[in-house]
Structures are given as structure tokens and as C-alpha cells.
């Protein structure tokens, strides 16, 4: 039996050098250890270009499922570790070939240790020859059914027949912290995923309008945050009561400009929360043209009230692409729960699609929004959510 006892992890976008590289590896190393913390018996080791996990009998399926959620991994393999000795290598390759039910194969050897006496090509030929002599399986270098990979290092060699794609990107946290506007819709959780993929630690701000929005709607947002938090350990969610601002906006501006003004207020609030929490940018799930507040004109008018950069990871995604991603990361089903539609009072009938900054300012000058913002910030509630456990006591 082939004993795939060691996970070999290959790094993602590691183009940077020097200290950044060290930080990258260190962060990834910690993130991996964190996500696997509940699996017992694992032994970790890192080198300048690989991270290794010795399974010691742990459930490899569980490890695989978790590792696929770690950003910064380009791919990983369950390998058998042998001594860097051509006979041991060749024998293991033969065993892999024998135990597979595949008809064609290809050898892919790589020498990380150039002091190994044979070149990669020679390793390939030796191992392939052994397989050809002892099995029915034939070589196909173009479309092999089985790829046997050999990585030769100084003292040990890792052999595998499977290369599992990782999540790619950068280890979460390596590129700083952003504050995401999390609505409970389909888009913003996907935006969170995209931000984390680029190594950003995401905090969220949610605007609730009780009693016009329900407790269920609020819980839904926290559930979504918890779902995506698995990619980055946990997530801090700032919940801001938006009701008074919203009521004031409707009283002052009425229907067409309400959404524009609401978004401007949300951005102002977000900038303040971001500053207080060391987030260098805010982020949204906006996608150009999707709704009235997401036209280019609207973005200009809404963006005008703040100086902090706004990252919009989904800005050029089609709705369908976003839905596909939401399905992939598991947030779609929750996002489409209808809670926030329970109230139609704030459902604008004729939102302006080309708002002007002058007009928005005109309305805003008619009420003291600054003190309402201050009030809302003071009353904000901070909740830290964690990836959900599947088990409930009653189940």
C-alpha cells in the first residue's frame, strides 16, 4: 500500500523576495495551523519553498477540505515520503502505478536538491522503465491518466500521484485590513471572499434599520459573515443602527434621492469605523450598473463624501458570475432568504440613476446629519463571529 502520510503544500503568488517572502510563508504557516487546529496528531514543518504536514493517521479528507480554503496555497498533494535514494524512489513509483487502475502514465520528477546524482530526466527514465517492465500500464506524455510526481530534496523525496488545486491568492492578513459593507445580499459575501483572496483581513459593517428590518435579517448577516469568516479565522462585524438617519432622509429628500443619500451616509459612517479600526480602505460588493445606486454617476456622487479608498472587487463581474461564486463558497442559499424584503416602506419607486452632488448636498444641508452619524457611531454594536460548527447539541 502506498502510504500518503505527508501533505506537501506549494505556495501561491510568491513573486516577492526578501522579508516579504518570509512574512508570506510565516503568515501562511500560521493560517494553515489555525484552520487545522481541531485535527489532532498533525506535525508541521516549513522550508523556504514548501510547507509539509505529517498526518500521523489523521483524516486526510478533512485536511483536504480545510486546506482548500486557505488562501496563499497554489496546490497541495498527499505524498509518500521516502529517502532520497533512487531505488526507494523507483520502488514507490512502481507501487503507485500498480495500485492505480489507470492505463497510461507520465513521470514528472523535479530536483530541488541539485546535489542529487541523477538529473530529473534520468530519474524519470529509471522510474518509468521499472513501471513499464513490471506492469501493463503504458506511457503517454500528452494525456496521461496518471501523473506520478517526484520531488527530490536533500534528505527526503516526496512522491504523489495527485495535485490538488489550492485557493490561490495571498495568505489572509498579509496585505492589511479593509472594512466591507455587508448587506445580506448575494454580492457582499462574495466581495469578502475576493478581498480575502488577495490577502486582506476583512472586517464588516452592517446597517440595520429596526424595526423596519427584522431580527432575522440581522441574524442572516451574521450567519453570512460567519460563513466567509472561515477563510480568515473569524470576523468582526460592526452593526450600526441606521433607522433614524433613514427616517430623516426620507422626510427630507423623499423617494428619488433617498438611496443616494443613504449610501452617502453609509460611506461616511464606514470611513469613521475604518479609521478607528485601522482599516486602510473600505470595500463594497457593488457591480457597475446593477442597480440605480451602482451607476458610474451614482458612484461619483456617493464616493464624493469620503477620502478613504473604496475597493469594489466585483465591479466588473456579471450577476451570474457572482451567483456562481456565491454558490461555490456556500453563501448563496442564505443570501436569497427573503428577510430584508419584509418591509417595503424603504423600497424606492423611482430612484435617481444620475444623481448630482449639488442636489445631494442641498438635501443634506437641510438636516443635522453629522450629529445623527455621531449618535449612530456611539451606539454601534460589535459582534465577533466564528465559522459555524455543524454540530448542535440536539442533533
Amino acid at each position: 500500500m502506498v502510504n500518503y502520510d505527508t501533505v506537501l503544500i506549494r505556495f501561491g503568488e510568491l513573486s516577492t523576495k526578501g522579508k516579504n517572502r518570509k512574512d508570506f510563508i510565516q503568515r501562511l504557516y500560521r493560517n494553515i495551523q489555525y484552520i487545522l487546529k481541531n485535527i489532532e496528531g498533525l506535525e508541521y514543518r516549513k522550508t523556504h519553498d514548501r510547507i509539509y504536514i505529517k498526518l500521523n493517521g489523521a483524516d486526510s479528507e478533512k485536511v483536504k477540505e480545510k486546506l482548500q480554503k486557505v488562501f496563499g496555497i497554489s496546490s497541495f498533494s498527499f505524498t509518500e515520503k521516502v529517502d532520497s535514494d533512487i531505488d526507494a524512489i523507483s520502488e514507490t513509483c512502481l507501487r503507485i502505478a500498480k495500485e492505480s487502475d489507470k492505463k497510461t502514465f507520465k513521470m514528472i520528477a523535479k530536483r530541488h536538491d541539485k546535489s542529487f546524482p541523477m538529473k530529473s530526466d534520468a530519474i524519470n527514465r529509471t522510474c518509468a522503465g521499472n513501471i513499464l517492465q513490471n506492469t501493463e500500464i503504458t506511457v503517454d506524455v500528452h494525456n496521461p491518466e496518471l501523473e506520478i510526481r517526484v520531488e527530490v530534496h536533500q534528505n527526503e523525496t516526496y512522491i504523489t500521484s495527485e495535485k490538488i488545486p489550492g485557493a490561490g491568492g495571498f495568505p489572509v492578513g498579509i496585505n492589511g485590513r479593509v472594512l466591507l459593507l455587508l448587506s445580506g445580499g448575494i454580492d457582499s459575501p462574495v466581495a469578502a471572499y475576493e478581498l480575502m483572496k488577495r490577502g486582506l483581513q476583512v472586517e464588516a459593517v452592517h446597517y440595520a434599520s429596526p424595526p423596519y428590518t427584522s431580527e432575522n435579517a440581522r441574524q442572516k448577516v451574521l450567519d453570512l459573515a460567519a460563513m466567509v469568516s472561515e477563510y480568515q479565522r473569524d470576523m468582526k462585524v460592526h452593526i450600526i443602527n441606521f433607522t433614524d438617519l433613514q427616517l430623516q432622509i426620507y422626510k427630507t429628500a423623499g423617494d428619488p434621492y433617498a438611496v443616494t443619500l443613504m449610501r452617502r451616509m453609509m460611506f461616511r459612517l464606514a470611513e469613521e469605523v475604518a479609521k478607528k479600526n485601522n482599516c486602510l480602505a473600505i470595500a463594497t460588493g457593488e457591480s457597475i450598473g446593477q442597480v440605480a445606486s451602482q451607476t458610474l454617476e451614482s458612484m461619483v456622487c456617493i464616493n464624493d463624501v469620503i477620502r478613504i479608498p473604496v475597493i469594489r472587487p466585483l465591479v466588473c463581474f456579471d450577476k451570474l458570475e457572482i451567483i456562481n461564486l456565491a454558490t461555490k463558497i456556500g453563501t448563496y442559499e442564505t443570501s436569497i432568504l427573503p428577510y430584508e424584503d419584509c418591509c417595503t416602506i424603504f423600497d424606492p419607486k423611482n430612484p435617481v440613476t444620475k444623481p448630482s452632488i449639488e442636489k445631494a448636498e442641498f438635501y443634506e444641508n437641510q438636516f443635522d446629519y453629522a450629529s445623527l452619524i455621531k449618535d449612530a457611531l456611539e451606539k454601534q454594536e460589535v459582534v465577533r463571529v466564528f465559522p459555524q460548527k455543524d454540530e448542535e447539541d440536539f442533533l
Partner: protein
Amino acid sequence: MRNRVYFDNASTTDIHPEVLNSYMDLLKKYYVNSESLYNEGSEINKMMEKARKAIAELLDVHPSEIIFTSGSSESNTSAIKGVCFADLTKKHIITTMVEHSSIMNACLQMHNVFGYDVTYLPVDRQGKVHVEDLKKALRNDTAIVSIMCVNNESGAINPIEEIAEIVKKQSHAYMHVDLTQAVGKVDINMKNIDLASISAHKLEGLKGSGILVKKNHVPFVPLINGGEQESGLRGGTSNAPVNMIFAKTLRLALENGKKYHSYIASLQKHLVERLQEIDGIEINSPADGVVGIVNFSYEAIPSEVMQNGLNERGFMVSARSTCASKSTDPSYVLKAMGFSDRRASSCIRVSLSRKNTIEETDAFIEALKEITEHYGEL
């Protein structure tokens, strides 16, 4: 979280401690199949039949006229379909515009799928059916008349005895009454009633438990086919401990209904009086409605918003019937009573129990005042 106040007893009730304790004992001890031939099986069967007898006595019917079901929705659906399918020559059903969704949707299906003619009797501003309308609607081919005793949203009480007598005397139709909200609150005479539905969970009993009373002279086709359980009228292994405990549930509900009637009535009176303090609140329940149900509207605030606001302040209430509470349409019950869309979209139902207190009703009024002052402007 602040103290929570349960004002939603028409939706369901918490379980009576005596019911719970007896049930736990039964559940642990009596697990074998009541149809089994060995001693343990027959013992359970005997106990279940004793319970059936006790229930029958409380309702003044014959034990063989009690069918155990999963609750009123099943009893209601079975009553309509079971009676209709037993005599396919009669293709007409009479019901009202304000029945529970289990009756409404059963009738709708009988019409859409099986081509039955359904007459929906109107109700007046007090939520009651008029017997004159019923008389006019009765036909030679009327298979069943299904009218609820107490409406779950408005609390209106129908003149069931009078209605049942008319159906008996002036037609060949069978009379079904949904007693779900009536037990323990309204005196019921089963004399002219052919079928009736009761749920345990509205009576401090178990969820998933109920009965259909079906008089022996009523031809009936079972909705759930199975073995010989329930005289072949409702298949499936008997949920013996649940069925047994229904007897105690019903007995306690009838006893406590009498005992606490005046207490709940005084709470209700106090609540209704204090609701008048708030400008814009209008009572939708009739003055002579069932004890415990107060339905009111504050038109400027839709039901969901009001419910959210009350929930935030610790009060559990319903708007429309809980079975329809996910929908944002106006209440069809209030619409049928002649109220406007706006009023029927802003209704709140408070349903009191013997466990509620005067302090709770006062706190409720304060919460309402807060909400109406703060959010009542739009």
C-alpha cells in the same frame, strides 16, 4: 435580553407541567407497537382505548368517533376530503371566507383538482357568519359544510349550534366544525355536529397531536392509508403515548378554561381599555369575541414593522394567523370583515393566557406608545 412576554397563545401554548411529566413517563415506558399481540402491546392498546373513551366522554360522543391525528391541519383536511370522496355524487362544499389555511387550501384543491364547487360564506364586520347566507347556499348536492367555531385572527365566535341545526334540518350535508380555538373557551354541544377538529398544542399539550371527531353515521374515506389503526380511518403506527396524553390535555384545558375565564377576561378588558389611550389604534376584534384574543391595527405601521418593534422590546405577538405570517399580503380575515387593505396590513393579534399578568399588558402599552411615537410618522 430583557424579559420576554408571550402574547401569542393562539399560535401555540407552552406545555402543561402535568402533561409533560405524564408524557415523559409514558414515552419511556410504552415503546412497543400498540398493535402487537404480546402482552406489552395489548397493554398499550388498552391504555390508548381508555384515553379515547375519556376524550369521548369529555366531548359527549362515542369512543369510536374519536380519530387520533397529527393536529387540526390534518383533521381539517381529512374532514373535507374524507367526506367528499366518500360520496362522489355530491360536488358542492360550503365554507367561509375566514377559515384557517388548512380548510381554505383543501377547498381550493377540491375545486382546482377535483372540480368541486365551493361557496365561501361572507362574514359581517364582527367576523360572524349569517345563517341566512348559509340557508341560501345549501344545495341538494352539498357534501359538507365546514365552519369554524372561533376565528383564530379576530376571535369572532360563530353561532355554531344554530348553524349546525340548519345544516341538519335543511340539507343532507355533513357539518364540520373547526374547534381549534374554541376548546376551553366556548361551550360546545356536539349534538348536530358530524365532524370536528381539535389540536393539542393550543391546549398546553403536545405539537403534532390532535383529533378528528367523526360521528359513526358519516361515510368517510381515509386520507392516510395504512393498517387497521384508528378503525382503518387513519393509517400509521399509533403514536400511543402522544394519543394517551391527549386525554389529560383536553381534561385540563376544559377545567382550566372555566377556572381562568374571568381572569383572562379581566386582563383582556384592561388591555382593550388601555389600547384606547393610543391615538390611531383601532380594535378589530368584535366586542363579543372569544376570551383572550385582541386584534388591533395601527394603520401607519405595517404588521411586520410593528412586530419587529415589539420583538425588540420583548413582546411575542402575531399579525395574521401564524400559518400565514410569512406572507406580506393583507389579512384575508380582516378583509372579509370589511376592513381596508391598510388596516388589514397593519393588524396585530395579542392572545392572552392564564399565565399573563396585568403588569405585562401595561408594559405592552408602554412599548406600543414608544413605537407609535417614534415610527408612526411615515
